């Protein structure tokens, strides 16, 4: 399966992925409705995008009481709007924090890999996000562990 491969070292924090994602998902340029999120590290000196890893369990999918989350042709877990009742159980079941909820429509939403042509990967000018046939791994863990040193030093 092709997935979103994320190479945080290449991210410059330009937020184009968020804008492309929100446009693709909701038809509006509203980063608040993007399901890929760029996080700053070390006082905005580095950045990394974070989104649903399309985990094998699919905790969101197995938790949904009405079967509103399915697997689309691209292999992504995808919310069926007409079936979702807005109960939010998926938001608490997903242990990655990558389920979203739109209070306007009262529906859950998430990364569905744009059905097989992810807008974020297309929009990323530095190829920090690519759409590749590779196994899913924790793309950000090591990067973030290194880039939280200053944040933590400030605590003491």
């Amino acid at each position: 399966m092709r997935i979103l491969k994320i190479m945080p070292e290449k991210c410059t924090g330009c937020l184009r992925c968020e804008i492309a994602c929100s446009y693709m998902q909701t038809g509006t340029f509203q980063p608040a409705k993007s399901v890929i999120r760029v996080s700053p590290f070390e006082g905005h000196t580095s950045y990394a995008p974070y989104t649903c890893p399309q985990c094998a369990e699919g905790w969101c999918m197995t938790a949904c009481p009405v079967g509103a989350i399915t697997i689309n042709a691209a292999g992504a877990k995808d919310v069926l709007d007409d079936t979702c009742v807005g109960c939010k159980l998926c938001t608490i079941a997903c242990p990655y924090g990558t389920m979203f909820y739109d209070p306007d429509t009262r529906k859950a939403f998430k990364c569905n890999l744009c059905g097989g042509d992810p807008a974020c990967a297309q929009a990323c000018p530095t190829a920090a996000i690519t759409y590749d046939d590779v196994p899913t791994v924790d793309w950000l863990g090591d990067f973030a562990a290194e880039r939280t040193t200053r944040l933590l030093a400030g605590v003491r």
Partner: protein
Amino acid sequence: MPARHLIIGGGTAGMNAMRTIREEEKERSELTLVSAEKPYSRMVLPYYLDRSIAESHVFTATAGVLAEWGVKAHLGRRAASLDTKANVCTLDDGTTIAYDDCLIATGSSPVKAPVPGADGRGVHSFWTLDECRRLIADTRPGSHVVMVGAGFIAFTILNSILARGATLTIVEIAPRILPRMIDATGADVVEAWLRKHGVTIRTDARLAHIEDVPGARGSKTIRKRLRFAKGADIVADVVIMATGIRANLEWLKGAGLRIDQGIVVDDHLRSTVPNVYAAGDVAEGRELISGASVVHAIEPTAQEHGRVVGANMAGRQVPYRGSLSMNIVEVCHLDIASFGAWDDPKAEAVTGVKSDRSAYRKLLWTGDRLTGAIIVGLSSAIWTTNDIGMLKGLVHSQVSLARFKDYLRKNPFDIKPAYIASKATSKLLPQTVLGRPSKAPGTTPVAV
């Protein structure tokens, strides 16, 4: 001869078990379902109550779907007794069903506060589709609804009652609302929010008696007067008792199963009689973090239990890692969530409040690990939703947060750096409930 599986109870756990049996089995088995009600999801009823979905939306399988799955269904029938020596279940109409193995997934029933008048007309419970239909019929715009009990289930229908145009008063015997879901500080934040949104709340209110208010001559509607141990009476058009639930276990007298808080099950969800499984609200099984034996009467536990039982009934040996307590409810656009051991008195608690934003966090630490959490926050703040998931992941994965403990002590609202840098993701990615990727939930179960 194909194996004969009997599923008793066609709710969440029963449906998940049947689907998983069909996904996992090598050879088509005989699958029989006995269920007092048609298969539907109780937790979807609030959305039927507020009319955002049609009644048909609550059902998790129709007779047609069950036929397609090859399930012999006895709907509207109750299991009346179980002979675990002869491997026979007797139904309320005398029908007997022989089985090779069976699953008990009969769920819970609501329990009304034991006060005179609680059984009278116009005093509702809210647990079944029938009760939901009756409440819909009785609640009109302008009705004054009094909810007795301020627990989680009461809160799941709070928005729906307001959406029907009713005014709402909540009375609670405890000194605060949501006593079994969040702590006192969180409850204060939620209570202030609800008052601001026009909900009347009376805590420390011991209901003593409910009686009819004599109406105008010939009037068909009845009003209700609630009397309390102290304080003024309340007059209501509709009374809802959300005063607790009890597992449906009475029919198992004499079955020889060990029953404590629920049917005691091992890590394969087998009762003390090995070919009898139990799942969902009736089962007392392993808790994820402590390994203790607990009843978690929640949807995710019923789903996971059901799937694990299904895989085991189909002939695989699938141990269950344990259930994690988790609840989320939104009231008037305020999210309230808790999970794990949020009320553990031995845990080290870190809290943060932003009163101006009605936001509250409580992180519970056992050593370097998070073992429970409470979150209250506006549902319009996307970070609330993301943080709910990440905090759940930190509790679920039990990653060490040693490096971040001091930081989170001071910044309980900044979860994301700690989550990502603690590599919770690498610990979580290999985890699945059944030891394989999950199948999509379409109408036909897909064989693995």
